[in-house]
């Protein structure tokens, strides 16, 4: 069950950021009052809100030191998701840098 909540938590962080990004891209073209922009924006906010409460739920069951490293993995996941879904460019420094950041976050949380 906990694994299931973990997956939903991470998925909703990634989806939330992608939606927010899409909303802001579209807002450049269509303005903020456009229905499509608003839908994307509110989906992003809703998704991030869900992840916020799932995080609290997970923290009630697990130690922060166990849970925190998993947050580190979202860096790489969001970069990859942005490349796949938003067609952003992936470069070697970007991949390498985000891997280092993820590893660093895991080590920060271990001690």
């Amino acid at each position: 069950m906990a694994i299931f909540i973990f997956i939903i938590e991470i998925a909703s962080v990634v989806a939330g950021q992608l939606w927010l990004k899409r909303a802001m891209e579209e807002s450049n073209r269509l303005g903020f009052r456009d229905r499509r922009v608003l839908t994307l924006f509110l989906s992003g906010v809703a998704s991030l809100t869900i992840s916020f409460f799932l995080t609290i739920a997970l923290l009630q069951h697990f130690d922060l030191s166990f849970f925190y490293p998993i947050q580190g993995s979202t860096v790489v996941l969001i970069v990859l998701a942005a490349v796949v879904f938003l067609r952003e460019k992936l470069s070697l420094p970007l991949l390498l840098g985000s891997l280092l950041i993820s590893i660093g976050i895991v080590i920060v949380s271990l001690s």
Partner: protein
Amino acid sequence: MSDAFRWSTNPWFVLVLEAIFVTASEVLLKVGASKTRRVEGWEWTGLMSLASIWIWVAIVFVILSFICWIYVLRHIPLSIAFPLSNVVHVLVPLSCWIFLGEHISETRWCGIAIVVFGIAVVARPIAKIEEKL
């Protein structure tokens, strides 16, 4: 356009601001939470912390950081902005060390150094492009 205005609308500057606001909110939440009166049975909600002024200031910082983040996303690709925003994982432990007197172990210093290095690796190619513009 005045210099101050040009600076405040630069998305890279706003990204730094966002990280500072997140850091401030985390530190203030910690200060507020540790000053909160413990009430049996209600602790888990965290609601009692709303009595602390620090928590309210922290909430303001959370809102400010979100506004900054939205602005950043409007101008910078997510695959670059998100890794860079993780500089909070450096700023938060450093602020806890400086302002709250918390201890940072050697392993944690190593982790902080690796995050800084990773951020530099992501940021270097961008800095070069910006220089050319």
